[in-house]
């Protein structure tokens, strides 16, 4: 009887998600969500891209060269061209195409990110319903509006750190708690609007903190994916961020760059519409197809040797 009760309750509650009523009466609460006033974050907006570029940042000159010194790693990009008009590069940055790896490649890995990665998390959970080995035993440490800037702050009741097994913590602590051997990070969408240089500096600090606490963990920095339109940040800013990010991390030990964004750009460098789930609002979140492209990129741009 109790089981039936529960199922009926579930049915009643789940069907609420299809109603769109505007009834927002206050519920007599036992534990209410806190209403906190804190420094406002710059959320990616729907505002049309302004003329001019308020965040002009000098891209390292190497990015404009047609040739780069050999890094010594056959798996990495040794030379690329920046295609300025297309807001992309002729070849992907970082790890080049490899043999397709098995999903076990992602065993003992942790994906860190914001709402974009949040969608990947639910996508992976869904795929595991029919394919339990999908993405191996990869776990997710994600939170909407998460950023490197937020990641470097102290963990408090109001901080934006994600939770790992229900407990809020820093990225480096989540890596340790999960025992992950690989960390895949995609952050920047909520950083770049504050300044690309600072965003990259913060990412370096994040990497260093992970490294200090987890010296054996291999870190994969994923390029921030583009958006269709909008500002704070614009697609152009995201691309500049990705370039600077790659140039900054490419020679760090046990750090590899995975240019996921390369697979998602259209001919103008914007997010391909068929991969987007919020075409009329923020224009930057992915749908299932976008996640499929993402996963496919990861399994085909794997680390096949450790350049040490």
């Amino acid at each position, binding site marked *: 009887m109790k*089981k039936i009760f529960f199922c009926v309750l579930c049915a009643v509650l789940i069907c609420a*998600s299809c109603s769109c009523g505007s009834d927002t009466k206050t519920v007599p609460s036992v*534990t209410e969500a*806190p209403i906190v006033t804190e420094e406002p974050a710059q959320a990616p907006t729907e505002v049309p891209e302004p003329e001019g570029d308020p965040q002009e940042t000098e891209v390292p000159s190497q990015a404009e060269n047609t040739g780069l010194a050999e890094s010594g790693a056959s798996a990495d990009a040794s030379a690329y061209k920046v295609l300025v008009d297309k807001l992309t590069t002729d070849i992907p940055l970082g790890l080049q195409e490899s043999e397709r790896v098995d999903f076990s490649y992602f065993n003992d890995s942790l994906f860190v990110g914001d709402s974009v990665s949040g969608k990947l998390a639910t996508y992976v959970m869904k795929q595991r319903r029919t394919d339990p080995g999908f993405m191996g035993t990869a776990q997710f440490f994600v939170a909407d509006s998460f950023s490197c800037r937020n990641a470097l702050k102290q963990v408090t009741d109001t901080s934006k750190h994600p939770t790992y097994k*229900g407990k809020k913590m820093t990225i480096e602590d989540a890596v340790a708690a999960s025992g992950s051997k690989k960390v895949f990070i995609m952050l920047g969408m909520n950083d770049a609007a504050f300044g690309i240089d600072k965003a990259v500096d913060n990412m370096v600090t994040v990497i260093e903190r992970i490294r200090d606490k987890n010296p054996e963990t291999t870190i994969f920095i994923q390029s921030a994916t583009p958006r269709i339109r909008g500002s704070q940040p614009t697609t152009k800013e995201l691309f500049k961020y990705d370039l600077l990010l790659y140039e900054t991390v490419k020679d760090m030990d046990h750090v590899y760059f995975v240019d996921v964004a390369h697979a998602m750009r259209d001919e103008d460098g914007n997010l391909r519409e068929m991969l987007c789930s919020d075409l009329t609002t923020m224009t930057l979140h992915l749908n299932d197809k976008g996640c499929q492209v993402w996963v496919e990129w990861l399994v085909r741009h794997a680390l096949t040797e450790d350049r040490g």
Partner: protein
Amino acid sequence: MKKILFLLLCAAVILAACSCGSDKGAGTQAPAASPKVPADMDAVLTSFGLEETMLVLTREEILFIYGFEDADLKQASAAIHESGIQCDEFVLVEAVSEQAADRVEELLGLRLKQKANEMRDYLPEQYDIITKCSVYRDGFYTALIVSPQAESFTKLFKEAIG
């Protein structure tokens, strides 16, 4: 007992019939006739056309996401929105003891705070929904219901558990 069950089923049908779908394509019109309510949550979602927007969590996922101890839960059911940016979430737990329910309630409270933190200054409409929601506790039962219709369903939950 049977009367309460019947009333709840009717409520489910009525609510499904007057739902008008979310901008996230939350679902088609619910079937006009009262659907048979199976024990399988996935089947329930499918019968209401919600299988494409809400993801029902497995017990392992529930334990991982909320940080519950397996031994604390007599039964648990949860679903989250697949998009990653819609705040809709339902968590229903029957704990094994008062102390276990205390722990569950605390963790769900933290979960609610976390959701608010994420949406604050990010998605104001979602933040507004979250701040109007709460964790409900009655004896061994605890529920976290985050939805624009949270009030209605919390009331039903309260009535169902007496």
